[in-house]
């Protein structure tokens, strides 16, 4: 074993022959040289040596003779050969000629000019007598206050380390609990909806059979949890006559615009007082407009010339030209988009845009519904609002990502600060659509994520967004 190896392995007892003491020989050699005497030297009596300037010693001499610059490991090695730090009492310190910072080490067989005695210095066996005392002897006599401080610090450090790992464990537990709670909520919610629907059917059957029913406290599970006037888009719309029509309903029925009713064959017309039971309570309404052909390619370009609308219309036209490519590459030409949004105005507007682009649209109004809906149906794309009742869009997305990693989920948000965006991407969002958005903005996102695998279509748009895509990918990596 050569010296280099020995030095590098000096802390590893098993790699060392116990008889070999090259370290001691090197130390002796070093001390025999006179030119280090301001840094390290034999003491006057010649029965110990002292490191006077630990900084210089660590910087210059250790690398030269021991090929490292770690004073602590030098001291450790001395300890292994049973050298001891000479303790200088506080009183003696005042008259100690080598200064406050000096470290004096001693071994009974280590004496000036006595090379033969070196052979008697043996490396201590691998009996770790007293690790604490070795710490003591390395720093022991230096300064009791320092030692105490060091101990306190190292205790604190150990404590913090334990705390940290404990907290991490707890976070993981909480995470998994949270996930299972959300999952359970989804299950309970869909169960609840099924009960509600069954009871509705039961009630209607009874009523049709001429039964007179008492007034029941029978809230719609979908409406009960949400206060805001967004229930028009909830999958379950039918109220049994026993429940009071809500304000939203009155408004919906009185308004000229009744999107759900016109778009969903499942919903009875408002004039009919006889409700139709809805067994498909958890099935959201496909708001597919009959007027628009439900393919992306045939979104009808119209002849109006207003400039803000110019570009999307052209894009649609491009797609129309390449329609055949579209239909061959995509087995089902209908793009089915799930819109998760709690704001009624935004729902109507966004749905309108989507339908105009030939997408079939399903609307749900909170994160929980979004999860259960994506679980049960396959969508080509999900547009996800962030701030919503029941469960926010970011959390919903991270839950969805636990079982569906492919469906593009686009965050629609007014918060476009960088931190928020990074968070959204970390939650598994595929992209971000800043609110409020125009038809063009929406089109860009759609074409990027729905037609992105088709370079033939809307080439300009894909190229235009390549840069942004890369930026987003980069952010995700960070």
């Amino acid at each position, binding site marked *: 074993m050569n010296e280099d190896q020995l030095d590098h392995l000096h802390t590893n007892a098993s790699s060392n022959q116990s008889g070999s003491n090259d370290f001691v020989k090197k130390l002796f050699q070093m001390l025999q040289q006179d030119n280090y005497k301001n840094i390290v030297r034999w003491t006057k009596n010649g029965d110990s040596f002292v490191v006077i300037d630990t900084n210089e010693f660590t910087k210059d001499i250790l690398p030269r003779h021991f090929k490292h610059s770690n004073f602590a490991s030098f001291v450790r090695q001395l300890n292994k050969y049973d050298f001891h730090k000479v303790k200088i009492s506080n009183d003696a310190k005042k008259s100690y000629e080598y200064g406050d910072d000096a470290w004096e080490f001693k071994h009974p067989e280590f004496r000036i000019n006595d090379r033969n005695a070196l052979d008697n210095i043996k490396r201590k066996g691998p009996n770790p007598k007293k690790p604490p005392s070795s710490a003591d002897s390395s720093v022991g006599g230096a300064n009791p206050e320092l030692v105490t401080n060091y101990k306190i610090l190292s205790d604190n450090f150990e404590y913090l380390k334990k705390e940290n790992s404990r907290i991490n464990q707890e976070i993981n537990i909480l995470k998994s609990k949270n996930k299972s709670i959300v999952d359970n909520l989804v299950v309970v919610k869909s169960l609840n909806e099924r009960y509600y629907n069954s009871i509705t059917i039961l009630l209607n059957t009874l009523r049709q059979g001429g039964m007179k029913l008492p007034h029941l406290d029978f809230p719609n599970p979908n409406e009960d949890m949400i206060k*805001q*006037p967004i229930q028009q888009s909830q999958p379950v719309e039918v109220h049994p006559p026993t429940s009071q029509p809500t304000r939203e309903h009155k*408004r919906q029925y009185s*308004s*000229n*615009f009744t999107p759900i009713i016109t778009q969903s064959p499942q919903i009875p017309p408002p004039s009919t007082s006889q409700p139709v039971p809805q067994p498909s309570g958890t099935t959201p309404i496909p708001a597919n407009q009959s*007027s*628009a052909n439900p393919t992306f390619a045939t979104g*009808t370009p*119209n002849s*109006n010339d*207003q400039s*803000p*609308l110019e570009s999307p219309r052209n894009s649609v036209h491009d797609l129309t030209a390449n329609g055949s490519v579209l239909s061959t590459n995509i087995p089902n030409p209908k793009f089915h988009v799930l819109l998760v949004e*709690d*704001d*009624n*105005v*935004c729902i*109507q*507007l966004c749905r*309108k845009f989507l339908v*105009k682009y030939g997408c079939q649209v399903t609307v749900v109004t909170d994160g929980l519904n979004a999860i259960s809906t994506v679980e049960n149906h396959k969508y080509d794309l999900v547009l996800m609002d962030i*701030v919503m009742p029941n469960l926010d869009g970011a959390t919903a997305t991270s839950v969805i990502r636990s079982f569906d990693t492919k469906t593009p989920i686009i965050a629609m948000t*007014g918060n476009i600060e960088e931190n928020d965006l990074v968070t959204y991407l970390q939650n598994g969002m595929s992209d971000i659509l800043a*609110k*409020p958005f*125009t*038809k063009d903005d929406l089109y860009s996102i759609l074409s990027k994520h729905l037609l992105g695998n088709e370079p033939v279509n809307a080439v300009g748009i894909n190229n235009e967004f390549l840069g942004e895509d890369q930026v987003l990918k980069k952010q995700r990596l960070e």
Partner: protein
Amino acid sequence: MPDKKQQLQESGLVEWPVFSELIAMDEDEEGFSKSLFKTFVDQVLETFDEIDENLEEKNLDKLSGLGHYLKGSAAALGLNKISSQCERIQNYGHKNNFDNFELNNEDIVIDSDDYWVELIKDALKHARSGFDSSRKALNDYFDDDL
């Protein structure tokens, strides 16, 4: 009709690019834009009431949420005079005086809940007046009572 368009445009109450995109939708479905604004008007009236209630209770978090909610719809319709005030409500509700608004009332301790309630009241006042004038202009445009 062109006159009405011009009149509304000159009122500066709506972002014209957004609005013209909305009314272009009427080509597919007559009355679409009007119904959208009708929905919005109902939503605003309801939300204003809710804001009033929560001001009573000094429920700042809820107020911030309501501000955010209305901000989104107003912005989607290009009603920026309203959405900017809603943004103020949203931020004040989070105790963030993002526009360094100075409240001229020395009786109120800065940063107290009352302070933020007062700021929100100011924003709500402006939101209301923005809404009233926008509604009037839109009524004129649609020749209807929204």
